[in-house]
């Protein structure tokens, strides 16, 4: 039942959930296309401070099969608005240290405005709907799942 990666038959979309370091160089290379004048790569990286609190490390958990399906849906939705030629999305799961890459999104498009808009849309929507969760491991030794809108523990 678990699908940790997806590749579209047309070879224009790859999605991966991985517990290994994200190879964003390979991801960027995979979306390049001579029909395109623009490639945008976004990396979400583990930041040390959030509203004054210090992070020691993070852990990510996913509902794998649904996350991949939801990412496919979001890319299809993005393509209704922008001509995204190739899209690659990798989300890291498990334990991450400061500075490491939690997510990488690479998009190619004929023109740059579309590549920027499409990448930003995907990133904004991923944070709203894709069933992946972050657990903060604060520097004070406490841990906390991040669930915006949940009652405070």
């Amino acid at each position: 039942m678990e699908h940790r990666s997806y590749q579209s038959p047309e070879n224009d979309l790859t999605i991966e959930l991985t517990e290994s370091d994200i190879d964003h160089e390979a991801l960027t290379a995979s979306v390049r296309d001579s029909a395109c004048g623009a490639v945008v790569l976004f990396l979400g990286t583990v930041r040390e401070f959030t509203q004054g609190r210090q992070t020691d490390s993070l852990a990510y958990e996913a509902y794998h099969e649904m996350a991949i399906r939801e990412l496919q849906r979001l890319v299809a939705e993005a393509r209704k608005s922008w001509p995204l030629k190739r899209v690659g999305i990798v989300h890291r799961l498990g334990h991450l240290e400061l500075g490491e890459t939690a997510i990488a999104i690479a998009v190619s498009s004929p023109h740059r405005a579309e590549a920027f808009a499409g990448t930003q849309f995907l990133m904004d929507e991923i944070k709203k709907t894709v069933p992946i969760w972050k657990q903060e491991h604060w520097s004070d030794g406490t841990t906390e799942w991040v669930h915006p809108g949940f009652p405070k523990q």
Partner: protein
Amino acid sequence: MASTANITVRFFAQLKDLAGTGETQLLCQQAMRVAEVKEQIAVEYPWLRPYLKSVFIARNGSYCSGETEVNAGDEIAFIPPVSGG
């Protein structure tokens, strides 16, 4: 057929920690809807109730409404507010 007369309920992240399990089974009743699954879980795990109003439900991996019908063998996932990326 008793083994397929169940639905699987899945919990994630803090909800999993609070429930003490990532997965449980419910007996599927006739013409059962998602809202009734949610209510049964609230009865079985009353300490989850304050959280459940902020939880989305997915049936077999797709978001659904409380009115969605549930069938034997379905996987009903309780999706707490997401924080990927």
